[in-house]
Protein backbone atom coordinates (compact mmCIF):
# COMPACT_ATOMS: atom_id res chain seq x y z
CA UNK A 1 0.00 0.00 0.00
CA UNK A 2 2.90 2.29 0.83
CA UNK A 3 4.45 1.62 -2.61
CA UNK A 4 1.17 2.33 -4.47
CA UNK A 5 0.74 5.60 -2.59
CA UNK A 6 4.23 6.65 -3.57
CA UNK A 7 3.49 6.10 -7.24
CA UNK A 8 0.40 8.25 -7.09
CA UNK A 9 2.25 10.98 -5.33
CA UNK A 10 5.05 10.80 -7.85
CA UNK A 11 2.57 10.92 -10.73
CA UNK A 12 0.74 13.85 -9.19
CA UNK A 13 4.03 15.62 -8.62
CA UNK A 14 5.14 15.11 -12.21
CA UNK A 15 1.73 16.23 -13.47
CA UNK A 16 1.83 19.28 -11.23
CA UNK A 17 5.34 20.13 -12.40
CA UNK A 18 4.40 19.74 -16.04
CA UNK A 19 1.25 21.76 -15.47
CA UNK A 20 3.24 24.47 -13.77
CA UNK A 21 5.70 24.64 -16.64
CA UNK A 22 2.92 24.71 -19.17
CA UNK A 23 1.04 27.36 -17.24
CA UNK A 24 4.20 29.42 -17.12
CA UNK A 25 4.81 28.99 -20.81
CA UNK A 26 1.19 29.81 -21.57
CA UNK A 27 1.29 32.90 -19.42
CA UNK A 28 4.50 34.02 -21.10
CA UNK A 29 3.16 33.44 -24.59
CA UNK A 30 -0.18 35.09 -23.84
CA UNK A 31 1.61 38.04 -22.31
CA UNK A 32 3.84 38.30 -25.34
CA UNK A 33 0.81 38.13 -27.58
CA UNK A 34 -0.84 40.94 -25.67
CA UNK A 35 2.36 42.92 -25.87
CA UNK A 36 2.65 42.44 -29.63
CA UNK A 37 -0.93 43.51 -30.20
CA UNK A 38 -0.45 46.57 -28.04
CA UNK A 39 2.82 47.40 -29.76
CA UNK A 40 1.07 47.16 -33.13
CA UNK A 41 -1.61 49.59 -31.97
CA UNK A 42 1.06 51.78 -30.40
CA UNK A 43 2.82 52.22 -33.73
CA UNK A 44 -0.40 52.77 -35.63
CA UNK A 45 -1.57 55.40 -33.13
CA UNK A 46 1.51 57.51 -33.85
CA UNK A 47 0.85 57.41 -37.57
CA UNK A 48 -2.72 58.56 -36.98
CA UNK A 49 -1.60 61.31 -34.59
CA UNK A 50 0.69 62.66 -37.29
CA UNK A 51 -2.16 62.49 -39.80
CA UNK A 52 -4.09 64.74 -37.42
CA UNK A 53 -1.20 67.21 -37.32
CA UNK A 54 -1.22 67.51 -41.10
CA UNK A 55 -4.99 67.83 -41.18
CA UNK A 56 -4.84 70.79 -38.80
CA UNK A 57 -1.97 72.51 -40.62
CA UNK A 58 -4.00 72.51 -43.81
CA UNK A 59 -7.16 73.52 -41.94
CA UNK A 60 -5.42 76.54 -40.42
CA UNK A 61 -3.98 77.48 -43.81
CA UNK A 62 -7.36 77.24 -45.51
CA UNK A 63 -8.85 79.69 -43.00
CA UNK A 64 -6.08 82.30 -43.08
CA UNK A 65 -8.03 84.79 -45.16
CA UNK A 66 -11.45 84.09 -43.68
CA UNK A 67 -12.06 83.10 -40.07
CA UNK A 68 -8.35 83.05 -39.13
CA UNK A 69 -9.14 80.24 -36.74
CA UNK A 70 -8.17 76.66 -36.06
CA UNK A 71 -9.54 74.00 -33.75
CA UNK A 72 -9.15 74.61 -30.04
CA UNK A 73 -8.60 72.35 -27.04
CA UNK A 74 -12.19 72.98 -26.04
CA UNK A 75 -13.45 72.09 -29.48
CA UNK A 76 -11.00 69.69 -31.12
CA UNK A 77 -11.50 67.99 -34.45
CA UNK A 78 -11.86 64.23 -34.55
CA UNK A 79 -11.19 62.46 -37.81
CA UNK A 80 -10.26 59.10 -39.23
CA UNK A 81 -8.96 57.51 -42.40
CA UNK A 82 -11.33 55.35 -44.37
CA UNK A 83 -10.68 51.64 -43.88
CA UNK A 84 -8.13 52.18 -41.13
CA UNK A 85 -8.79 51.32 -37.50
CA UNK A 86 -8.64 54.18 -35.01
CA UNK A 87 -8.98 57.96 -35.14
CA UNK A 88 -7.18 61.20 -34.38
CA UNK A 89 -8.22 64.18 -32.30
CA UNK A 90 -6.41 67.44 -32.99
CA UNK A 91 -6.35 71.04 -31.80
CA UNK A 92 -4.07 74.08 -31.66
CA UNK A 93 -2.62 76.17 -28.85
CA UNK A 94 -0.58 79.33 -28.65
CA UNK A 95 3.19 79.08 -28.37
CA UNK A 96 3.07 80.21 -24.75
CA UNK A 97 -0.16 78.44 -23.88
CA UNK A 98 -3.78 79.41 -24.22
CA UNK A 99 -5.57 79.53 -27.52
CA UNK A 100 -3.75 80.26 -30.78
CA UNK A 101 -4.17 83.98 -31.48
CA UNK A 102 -4.40 83.57 -35.24
CA UNK A 103 -1.97 84.65 -37.96
CA UNK A 104 0.83 85.69 -38.06
CA UNK A 105 1.55 83.86 -34.80
CA UNK A 106 3.08 80.41 -34.82
CA UNK A 107 1.23 77.65 -33.01
CA UNK A 108 1.46 74.35 -31.21
CA UNK A 109 -0.58 71.61 -32.81
CA UNK A 110 -1.48 68.72 -30.55
CA UNK A 111 -2.91 65.49 -31.86
CA UNK A 112 -4.00 62.30 -30.14
CA UNK A 113 -3.99 59.14 -32.24
CA UNK A 114 -6.05 56.31 -30.79
CA UNK A 115 -6.13 52.68 -31.90
CA UNK A 116 -7.90 50.17 -29.70
CA UNK A 117 -6.94 50.94 -26.13
CA UNK A 118 -3.77 52.75 -27.05
CA UNK A 119 -3.43 56.50 -27.49
CA UNK A 120 -0.39 58.58 -28.32
CA UNK A 121 -0.23 62.35 -28.17
CA UNK A 122 2.13 64.33 -30.36
CA UNK A 123 2.79 68.07 -30.26
CA UNK A 124 4.55 69.90 -33.07
CA UNK A 125 5.06 73.55 -33.90
CA UNK A 126 3.18 74.99 -36.83
CA UNK A 127 5.25 77.69 -38.47
CA UNK A 128 4.08 80.25 -40.97
CA UNK A 129 5.48 80.62 -44.44
CA UNK A 130 5.61 84.29 -45.33
CA UNK A 131 3.77 86.15 -48.07
CA UNK A 132 6.87 86.46 -50.22
CA UNK A 133 8.14 82.88 -49.95
CA UNK A 134 6.72 81.41 -53.14
CA UNK A 135 6.14 83.88 -55.97
CA UNK A 136 8.23 86.40 -57.81
CA UNK A 137 5.08 88.08 -59.12
CA UNK A 138 1.45 87.38 -58.30
CA UNK A 139 -1.63 89.28 -59.42
CA UNK A 140 -4.89 88.21 -57.85
CA UNK A 141 -6.82 89.89 -60.66
CA UNK A 142 -4.27 90.18 -63.45
CA UNK A 143 -0.68 90.57 -64.46
CA UNK A 144 0.00 92.71 -67.53
CA UNK A 145 3.19 93.33 -69.44
CA UNK A 146 2.69 96.80 -70.77
CA UNK A 147 5.62 97.87 -72.95
CA UNK A 148 8.96 96.65 -74.24
CA UNK A 149 10.32 93.30 -73.12
CA UNK A 150 10.15 92.87 -69.39
CA UNK A 151 11.48 89.89 -67.53
CA UNK A 152 10.41 87.85 -64.56
CA UNK A 153 12.86 85.39 -63.03
CA UNK A 154 10.99 83.02 -60.75
CA UNK A 155 7.42 81.83 -60.47
CA UNK A 156 4.68 84.12 -61.74
CA UNK A 157 1.09 83.45 -60.75
CA UNK A 158 -2.36 84.89 -61.13
CA UNK A 159 -5.91 84.12 -60.11
CA UNK A 160 -7.04 86.09 -63.17
CA UNK A 161 -5.56 87.03 -66.53
CA UNK A 162 -1.96 87.06 -67.65
CA UNK A 163 -1.61 89.21 -70.74
CA UNK A 164 0.60 91.56 -72.67
CA UNK A 165 -0.41 94.78 -74.35
CA UNK A 166 0.30 95.35 -78.03
CA UNK A 167 3.70 96.79 -77.29
CA UNK A 168 4.55 94.56 -74.38
CA UNK A 169 6.42 91.28 -74.29
CA UNK A 170 7.03 88.97 -71.38
CA UNK A 171 10.00 86.79 -70.66
CA UNK A 172 9.34 84.43 -67.79
CA UNK A 173 11.92 81.80 -66.99
CA UNK A 174 10.06 80.19 -64.10
CA UNK A 175 6.69 78.50 -63.90
CA UNK A 176 3.47 80.38 -64.68
CA UNK A 177 0.64 79.41 -62.38
CA UNK A 178 -2.97 79.91 -63.46
CA UNK A 179 -4.79 79.52 -60.17
CA UNK A 180 -8.50 78.84 -60.01
CA UNK A 181 -11.25 78.54 -62.59
CA UNK A 182 -11.04 82.13 -63.87
CA UNK A 183 -7.29 82.21 -64.43
CA UNK A 184 -6.04 82.20 -68.00
CA UNK A 185 -3.29 83.38 -70.29
CA UNK A 186 -0.85 82.18 -72.90
CA UNK A 187 -0.01 78.50 -72.97
CA UNK A 188 3.46 77.06 -72.69
CA UNK A 189 5.52 74.27 -71.27
CA UNK A 190 6.06 76.22 -68.06
CA UNK A 191 2.33 76.76 -67.45
CA UNK A 192 0.83 75.09 -64.40
CA UNK A 193 -2.94 74.82 -64.07
CA UNK A 194 -3.88 75.01 -60.41
CA UNK A 195 -7.41 74.06 -59.31
CA UNK A 196 -7.94 76.72 -56.66
CA UNK A 197 -7.07 80.40 -56.47
CA UNK A 198 -4.30 81.32 -54.06
CA UNK A 199 -5.92 83.24 -51.21
CA UNK A 200 -3.96 86.23 -49.98
CA UNK A 201 -4.75 88.32 -46.92
CA UNK A 202 -5.56 91.96 -47.60
CA UNK A 203 -3.21 94.66 -46.35
CA UNK A 204 -5.93 95.57 -43.84
CA UNK A 205 -5.79 91.98 -42.59
CA UNK A 206 -1.98 92.03 -42.39
CA UNK A 207 -2.09 95.20 -40.30
CA UNK A 208 -4.84 93.81 -38.09
CA UNK A 209 -2.74 90.70 -37.46
CA UNK A 210 0.51 92.57 -36.86
CA UNK A 211 -0.68 95.66 -35.00
CA UNK A 212 -4.33 95.16 -34.13
CA UNK A 213 -5.48 98.18 -36.13
CA UNK A 214 -4.38 100.95 -38.47
CA UNK A 215 -4.94 103.51 -35.72
CA UNK A 216 -2.50 101.69 -33.44
CA UNK A 217 0.10 101.60 -36.19
CA UNK A 218 -0.47 105.27 -36.95
CA UNK A 219 0.03 106.17 -33.30
CA UNK A 220 3.12 104.00 -32.84
CA UNK A 221 4.85 104.37 -36.21
CA UNK A 222 8.51 105.31 -36.50
CA UNK A 223 8.10 108.29 -38.86
CA UNK A 224 9.88 110.53 -36.36
CA UNK A 225 12.98 108.33 -36.64
CA UNK A 226 13.73 109.34 -40.23
CA UNK A 227 17.26 110.58 -40.59
CA UNK A 228 19.28 112.75 -42.94
CA UNK A 229 22.99 113.09 -43.65
CA UNK A 230 24.92 115.67 -41.68
CA UNK A 231 25.75 118.77 -43.65
CA UNK A 232 29.45 118.04 -43.34
CA UNK A 233 31.15 114.64 -43.22
CA UNK A 234 27.85 112.98 -43.99
CA UNK A 235 28.04 109.21 -44.11
CA UNK A 236 25.84 106.20 -43.56
CA UNK A 237 26.89 105.86 -39.95
CA UNK A 238 25.27 106.87 -36.68
CA UNK A 239 27.66 109.84 -36.45
CA UNK A 240 27.38 110.73 -40.11
CA UNK A 241 23.62 111.17 -39.91
CA UNK A 242 21.18 113.12 -37.81
CA UNK A 243 17.45 113.40 -37.30
CA UNK A 244 15.50 114.59 -40.31
CA UNK A 245 13.12 116.38 -37.93
CA UNK A 246 10.27 114.57 -39.56
CA UNK A 247 7.12 114.81 -37.51
CA UNK A 248 5.64 111.64 -36.09
CA UNK A 249 2.28 112.86 -37.36
CA UNK A 250 3.38 113.66 -40.89
CA UNK A 251 2.31 110.93 -43.27
CA UNK A 252 3.21 112.22 -46.72
CA UNK A 253 6.47 112.47 -48.58
CA UNK A 254 6.78 114.76 -51.58
CA UNK A 255 9.54 116.22 -53.75
CA UNK A 256 9.51 119.50 -51.87
CA UNK A 257 10.23 117.79 -48.55
CA UNK A 258 13.69 116.87 -49.75
CA UNK A 259 14.68 120.51 -50.00
CA UNK A 260 14.80 120.57 -46.19
CA UNK A 261 17.36 117.82 -46.00
CA UNK A 262 21.08 117.69 -46.62
CA UNK A 263 22.63 116.05 -49.60
CA UNK A 264 24.09 112.59 -49.54
CA UNK A 265 27.81 111.94 -50.18
CA UNK A 266 26.81 111.21 -53.76
CA UNK A 267 25.37 114.69 -54.10
CA UNK A 268 21.61 114.16 -54.14
CA UNK A 269 19.09 115.23 -51.58
CA UNK A 270 18.34 112.24 -49.44
CA UNK A 271 16.25 110.79 -46.64
CA UNK A 272 17.13 107.71 -44.59
CA UNK A 273 14.64 105.17 -43.24
CA UNK A 274 16.26 103.34 -40.28
CA UNK A 275 14.79 99.92 -39.36
CA UNK A 276 11.20 100.37 -38.20
CA UNK A 277 7.57 100.54 -39.23
CA UNK A 278 6.43 103.64 -41.10
CA UNK A 279 2.95 104.94 -41.84
CA UNK A 280 2.39 106.99 -44.98
CA UNK A 281 -0.70 108.08 -46.85
CA UNK A 282 1.00 109.71 -49.83
CA UNK A 283 4.19 109.29 -51.79
CA UNK A 284 4.81 111.75 -54.58
CA UNK A 285 8.52 111.55 -55.18
CA UNK A 286 9.64 111.92 -58.75
CA UNK A 287 13.05 113.49 -59.02
CA UNK A 288 16.75 112.78 -58.59
CA UNK A 289 16.52 112.49 -54.82
CA UNK A 290 17.56 109.35 -52.96
CA UNK A 291 15.71 107.29 -50.40
CA UNK A 292 17.95 105.06 -48.29
CA UNK A 293 16.25 102.06 -46.75
CA UNK A 294 18.70 101.22 -43.97
CA UNK A 295 17.90 97.54 -43.65
CA UNK A 296 21.55 96.96 -42.81
CA UNK A 297 21.25 99.25 -39.80
CA UNK A 298 24.27 101.32 -40.79
CA UNK A 299 22.84 104.39 -39.10
CA UNK A 300 21.60 102.61 -35.98
CA UNK A 301 24.01 99.73 -35.52
CA UNK A 302 21.32 97.07 -35.77
CA UNK A 303 20.01 95.58 -39.03
CA UNK A 304 16.27 95.16 -39.26
CA UNK A 305 13.15 95.42 -41.30
CA UNK A 306 12.10 98.66 -42.93
CA UNK A 307 8.39 98.43 -43.53
CA UNK A 308 6.17 101.11 -45.02
CA UNK A 309 2.43 100.75 -44.51
CA UNK A 310 -0.13 102.74 -46.49
CA UNK A 311 -3.68 102.64 -45.09
CA UNK A 312 -6.81 101.73 -46.95
CA UNK A 313 -8.48 104.86 -45.56
CA UNK A 314 -6.12 107.21 -47.40
CA UNK A 315 -7.42 109.32 -50.28
CA UNK A 316 -7.36 107.63 -53.67
CA UNK A 317 -4.41 109.61 -55.00
CA UNK A 318 -1.80 107.85 -57.07
CA UNK A 319 1.56 107.25 -55.41
CA UNK A 320 4.84 107.54 -57.22
CA UNK A 321 8.33 106.54 -56.21
CA UNK A 322 10.38 107.57 -59.22
CA UNK A 323 13.72 108.16 -57.60
CA UNK A 324 16.83 106.37 -56.40
CA UNK A 325 15.94 103.84 -53.76
CA UNK A 326 18.91 102.16 -52.10
CA UNK A 327 18.93 99.43 -49.51
CA UNK A 328 21.84 98.98 -47.15
CA UNK A 329 23.40 95.75 -45.94
CA UNK A 330 26.12 94.55 -43.65
CA UNK A 331 25.51 90.94 -44.56
CA UNK A 332 27.97 89.45 -46.99
CA UNK A 333 25.14 87.78 -48.86
CA UNK A 334 23.14 90.99 -49.16
CA UNK A 335 20.23 89.36 -47.39
CA UNK A 336 19.64 92.44 -45.24
CA UNK A 337 18.44 94.33 -48.30
CA UNK A 338 15.55 91.91 -48.69
CA UNK A 339 14.07 93.11 -45.39
CA UNK A 340 12.40 96.07 -47.06
CA UNK A 341 8.62 95.92 -47.42
CA UNK A 342 5.85 98.13 -48.77
CA UNK A 343 2.33 97.19 -47.71
CA UNK A 344 0.06 99.37 -49.82
CA UNK A 345 -3.56 99.24 -48.75
CA UNK A 346 -4.62 102.39 -50.59
CA UNK A 347 -7.24 102.01 -53.25
CA UNK A 348 -4.97 103.85 -55.65
CA UNK A 349 -2.26 102.95 -58.10
CA UNK A 350 1.37 103.01 -57.10
CA UNK A 351 4.26 103.06 -59.52
CA UNK A 352 7.96 102.56 -59.06
CA UNK A 353 10.24 103.65 -61.84
CA UNK A 354 13.73 104.72 -62.72
CA UNK A 355 15.47 102.72 -60.08
CA UNK A 356 18.62 100.81 -60.76
CA UNK A 357 17.92 97.96 -58.41
CA UNK A 358 15.75 97.70 -55.35
CA UNK A 359 15.11 94.83 -53.01
CA UNK A 360 12.36 93.40 -50.86
CA UNK A 361 8.67 92.61 -50.90
CA UNK A 362 5.95 94.79 -52.40
CA UNK A 363 2.46 93.89 -51.26
CA UNK A 364 -0.76 95.49 -52.43
CA UNK A 365 -3.72 93.18 -51.90
CA UNK A 366 -6.69 95.44 -51.29
CA UNK A 367 -10.32 94.46 -50.92
CA UNK A 368 -12.68 95.71 -53.62
CA UNK A 369 -10.04 97.71 -55.45
CA UNK A 370 -8.83 97.98 -59.00
CA UNK A 371 -5.63 99.66 -57.91
CA UNK A 372 -2.47 98.43 -59.55
CA UNK A 373 1.17 98.04 -58.64
CA UNK A 374 3.27 99.19 -61.57
CA UNK A 375 6.98 99.03 -62.24
CA UNK A 376 8.36 100.92 -65.20
CA UNK A 377 11.43 102.51 -66.67
CA UNK A 378 13.93 99.66 -66.57
CA UNK A 379 13.36 99.13 -62.89
CA UNK A 380 14.98 96.08 -61.36
CA UNK A 381 13.24 94.60 -58.37
CA UNK A 382 15.08 91.88 -56.53
CA UNK A 383 12.28 90.39 -54.53
CA UNK A 384 8.59 89.82 -54.90
CA UNK A 385 5.52 91.78 -56.03
CA UNK A 386 2.08 90.69 -54.87
CA UNK A 387 -0.93 92.82 -55.75
CA UNK A 388 -4.45 92.78 -57.17
CA UNK A 389 -3.22 94.14 -60.49
CA UNK A 390 0.44 94.02 -61.42
CA UNK A 391 1.78 95.95 -64.40
CA UNK A 392 5.32 95.43 -65.56
CA UNK A 393 6.75 97.45 -68.38
CA UNK A 394 9.55 99.51 -69.80
CA UNK A 395 12.05 96.70 -69.80
CA UNK A 396 11.78 96.17 -66.07
CA UNK A 397 13.05 93.03 -64.40
CA UNK A 398 11.85 91.13 -61.35
CA UNK A 399 14.43 88.77 -59.88
CA UNK A 400 13.20 86.32 -57.27
CA UNK A 401 15.94 85.79 -54.68
CA UNK A 402 17.55 82.46 -54.02
CA UNK A 403 15.25 80.08 -52.13
CA UNK A 404 14.76 81.16 -48.56
CA UNK A 405 16.57 84.49 -48.81
CA UNK A 406 13.47 86.65 -48.84
CA UNK A 407 11.67 84.48 -46.32
CA UNK A 408 11.24 86.49 -43.16
CA UNK A 409 9.83 84.66 -40.18
CA UNK A 410 8.10 87.91 -39.22
CA UNK A 411 6.11 88.26 -42.44
CA UNK A 412 2.39 87.58 -42.35
CA UNK A 413 1.50 83.96 -43.05
CA UNK A 414 0.45 82.74 -46.47
CA UNK A 415 0.33 79.17 -45.24
CA UNK A 416 1.39 77.04 -42.29
CA UNK A 417 3.80 74.14 -42.29
CA UNK A 418 5.65 71.96 -39.82
CA UNK A 419 8.05 74.03 -37.75
CA UNK A 420 11.09 72.74 -35.95
CA UNK A 421 9.73 70.99 -32.85
CA UNK A 422 8.24 67.52 -32.48
CA UNK A 423 7.57 65.92 -29.15
CA UNK A 424 5.50 63.11 -27.78
CA UNK A 425 3.45 63.94 -24.75
CA UNK A 426 1.49 62.12 -22.17
CA UNK A 427 -2.16 61.99 -23.00
CA UNK A 428 -3.80 65.21 -21.92
CA UNK A 429 -7.13 64.00 -20.68
CA UNK A 430 -6.24 61.65 -17.86
CA UNK A 431 -2.52 62.10 -17.51
CA UNK A 432 -1.62 58.68 -18.82
CA UNK A 433 -0.30 57.39 -22.09
CA UNK A 434 -2.97 54.75 -22.63
CA UNK A 435 -6.68 55.37 -22.52
CA UNK A 436 -7.12 52.43 -20.14
CA UNK A 437 -5.32 54.47 -17.49
CA UNK A 438 -1.87 52.88 -17.63
CA UNK A 439 1.39 54.25 -18.89
CA UNK A 440 3.42 51.09 -19.49
Amino acid at each position, binding site marked *: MREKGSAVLA*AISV*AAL*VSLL*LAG*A*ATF*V*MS*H*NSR*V*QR*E*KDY*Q*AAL*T*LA*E*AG*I*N*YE*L*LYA*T*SNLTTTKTAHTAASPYTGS*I*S*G*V*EGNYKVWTEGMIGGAWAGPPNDMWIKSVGTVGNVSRTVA*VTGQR*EGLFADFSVFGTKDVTFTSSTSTVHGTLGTNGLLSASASGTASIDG*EVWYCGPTASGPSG*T*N*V*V*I*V*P*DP*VLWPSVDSVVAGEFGSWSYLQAHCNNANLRQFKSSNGALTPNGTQSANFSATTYSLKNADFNKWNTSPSGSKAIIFPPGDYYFTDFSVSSTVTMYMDTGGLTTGTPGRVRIFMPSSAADSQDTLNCNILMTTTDGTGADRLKFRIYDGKKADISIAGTSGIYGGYYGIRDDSNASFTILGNSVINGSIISNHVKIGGGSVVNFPNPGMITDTQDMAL*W*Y*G*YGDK*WQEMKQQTNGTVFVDGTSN
Partner: protein
Amino acid sequence: MAQVTKLTRKARRRGVTYVDTLIASMIAVVGIVGTLNLVTFLANMTQRNQVSSVAYNVARVAVETVRSGGFPNYPDGTTYTYYDNNANLVGSIPNRVTKYKVITTASTNKYMVKNGVNFPSYNATRTVTVQVNNYPADTQLVKWGTLLIRGGI
Protein backbone atom coordinates in the same frame (compact mmCIF):
# COMPACT_ATOMS: atom_id res chain seq x y z
CA MET B 1 -12.31 -21.72 3.19
CA ALA B 2 -9.17 -20.02 4.08
CA GLN B 3 -7.76 -20.68 0.58
CA VAL B 4 -10.95 -19.51 -1.11
CA THR B 5 -10.91 -16.36 0.87
CA LYS B 6 -7.28 -15.81 -0.07
CA LEU B 7 -7.98 -16.35 -3.78
CA THR B 8 -10.98 -14.07 -3.72
CA ARG B 9 -8.92 -11.34 -2.17
CA LYS B 10 -6.13 -11.94 -4.67
CA ALA B 11 -8.57 -11.86 -7.56
CA ARG B 12 -10.20 -8.71 -6.23
CA ARG B 13 -6.82 -7.03 -5.97
CA ARG B 14 -5.96 -7.96 -9.60
CA GLY B 15 -9.31 -6.55 -10.90
CA VAL B 16 -8.74 -3.25 -9.14
CA THR B 17 -5.31 -3.01 -10.73
CA TYR B 18 -6.76 -3.34 -14.26
CA VAL B 19 -9.30 -0.60 -13.61
CA ASP B 20 -6.66 1.56 -12.08
CA THR B 21 -4.43 1.06 -15.06
CA LEU B 22 -7.25 1.80 -17.45
CA ILE B 23 -8.23 4.98 -15.70
CA ALA B 24 -4.65 6.03 -15.29
CA SER B 25 -4.05 5.41 -18.97
CA MET B 26 -7.08 7.44 -19.93
CA ILE B 27 -6.00 10.25 -17.69
CA ALA B 28 -2.51 10.04 -19.10
CA VAL B 29 -3.81 10.11 -22.67
CA VAL B 30 -6.06 13.07 -21.96
CA GLY B 31 -3.21 14.81 -20.21
CA ILE B 32 -0.74 14.13 -22.98
CA VAL B 33 -3.18 15.16 -25.70
CA GLY B 34 -4.07 18.30 -23.79
CA THR B 35 -0.44 19.06 -23.23
CA LEU B 36 0.37 18.52 -26.88
CA ASN B 37 -2.56 20.73 -27.90
CA LEU B 38 -1.47 23.44 -25.52
CA VAL B 39 2.11 23.24 -26.73
CA THR B 40 0.90 23.41 -30.33
CA PHE B 41 -1.37 26.34 -29.50
CA LEU B 42 1.45 28.19 -27.81
CA ALA B 43 3.83 27.45 -30.65
CA ASN B 44 1.30 28.79 -33.15
CA MET B 45 0.69 31.88 -31.07
CA THR B 46 4.41 32.50 -30.83
CA GLN B 47 4.64 32.18 -34.58
CA ARG B 48 1.72 34.60 -35.05
CA ASN B 49 3.35 37.06 -32.68
CA GLN B 50 6.55 36.92 -34.67
CA VAL B 51 4.61 37.47 -37.88
CA SER B 52 2.75 40.42 -36.36
CA SER B 53 5.96 41.97 -35.05
CA VAL B 54 7.57 41.83 -38.47
CA ALA B 55 4.34 43.04 -40.11
CA TYR B 56 4.04 46.26 -38.16
CA ASN B 57 7.72 47.01 -38.55
CA VAL B 58 7.38 46.50 -42.28
CA ALA B 59 4.32 48.78 -42.23
CA ARG B 60 6.32 51.44 -40.45
CA VAL B 61 9.06 51.20 -43.06
CA ALA B 62 6.47 51.58 -45.82
CA VAL B 63 4.92 54.69 -44.23
CA GLU B 64 8.32 56.29 -43.70
CA THR B 65 9.33 55.47 -47.27
CA VAL B 66 6.33 57.41 -48.58
CA ARG B 67 6.96 60.26 -46.17
CA SER B 68 10.66 60.54 -46.95
CA GLY B 69 9.90 60.81 -50.66
CA GLY B 70 8.29 64.17 -50.05
CA PHE B 71 4.72 65.33 -50.29
CA PRO B 72 4.33 65.54 -54.09
CA ASN B 73 6.61 62.74 -55.16
CA TYR B 74 5.11 59.38 -54.22
CA PRO B 75 2.96 58.26 -57.17
CA ASP B 76 -0.77 57.97 -56.85
CA GLY B 77 -2.23 54.47 -57.08
CA THR B 78 -1.30 51.15 -55.56
CA THR B 79 2.16 49.68 -55.35
CA TYR B 80 3.25 46.28 -54.07
CA THR B 81 6.42 45.53 -52.20
CA TYR B 82 7.57 42.21 -50.78
CA TYR B 83 9.62 41.33 -47.72
CA ASP B 84 11.12 38.13 -46.35
CA ASN B 85 10.69 36.58 -42.92
CA ASN B 86 13.28 38.90 -41.38
CA ALA B 87 11.76 42.09 -42.80
CA ASN B 88 14.40 42.30 -45.53
CA LEU B 89 13.21 43.89 -48.75
CA VAL B 90 12.68 41.35 -51.50
CA GLY B 91 11.56 43.84 -54.13
CA SER B 92 8.50 44.49 -56.21
CA ILE B 93 8.28 40.87 -57.36
CA PRO B 94 7.86 38.05 -54.84
CA ASN B 95 10.25 35.13 -54.71
CA ARG B 96 10.52 31.88 -52.75
CA VAL B 97 11.56 33.60 -49.50
CA THR B 98 8.77 36.17 -49.61
CA LYS B 99 6.63 36.18 -46.48
CA TYR B 100 5.02 39.62 -46.52
CA LYS B 101 3.21 41.62 -49.18
CA VAL B 102 2.96 45.37 -48.57
CA ILE B 103 0.19 47.19 -50.41
CA THR B 104 0.76 50.95 -50.41
CA THR B 105 -2.04 53.12 -51.76
CA ALA B 106 -1.76 56.88 -52.26
CA SER B 107 -4.60 59.11 -53.37
CA THR B 108 -4.80 62.87 -53.83
CA ASN B 109 -7.86 65.09 -53.62
CA LYS B 110 -6.61 68.00 -55.79
CA TYR B 111 -4.22 68.11 -58.72
CA MET B 112 -2.20 70.70 -60.55
CA VAL B 113 -1.47 70.06 -64.20
CA LYS B 114 1.78 70.84 -66.01
CA ASN B 115 2.36 69.70 -69.58
CA GLY B 116 -0.58 67.35 -69.27
CA VAL B 117 0.84 65.66 -66.19
CA ASN B 118 -1.05 65.69 -62.90
CA PHE B 119 0.73 66.26 -59.64
CA PRO B 120 -0.59 67.13 -56.18
CA SER B 121 -1.85 70.68 -55.81
CA TYR B 122 -0.21 72.99 -53.29
CA ASN B 123 -3.32 72.72 -51.12
CA ALA B 124 -3.99 69.02 -51.62
CA THR B 125 -4.41 66.34 -49.02
CA ARG B 126 -2.79 63.03 -49.85
CA THR B 127 -4.17 59.95 -48.13
CA VAL B 128 -1.74 57.06 -47.77
CA THR B 129 -2.71 53.60 -46.56
CA VAL B 130 -0.32 50.74 -45.96
CA GLN B 131 -1.61 47.20 -45.69
CA VAL B 132 0.65 44.27 -44.87
CA ASN B 133 -0.55 40.82 -45.87
CA ASN B 134 0.77 37.35 -45.25
CA TYR B 135 2.32 35.88 -48.36
CA PRO B 136 1.21 33.79 -50.17
CA ALA B 137 -1.93 33.42 -48.05
CA ASP B 138 -2.75 37.11 -48.72
CA THR B 139 -4.53 37.62 -45.42
CA GLN B 140 -4.39 41.07 -43.84
CA LEU B 141 -2.06 41.47 -40.87
CA VAL B 142 -1.83 45.24 -40.45
CA LYS B 143 -3.46 48.27 -42.05
CA TRP B 144 -2.30 51.79 -41.27
CA GLY B 145 -3.07 55.17 -42.74
CA THR B 146 -1.88 58.75 -42.64
CA LEU B 147 -2.32 62.11 -44.38
CA LEU B 148 0.30 64.18 -46.17
CA ILE B 149 0.24 67.88 -47.03
CA ARG B 150 2.71 70.42 -48.42
CA GLY B 151 5.11 71.42 -45.67
CA GLY B 152 3.57 68.92 -43.28
CA ILE B 153 5.14 66.42 -40.98
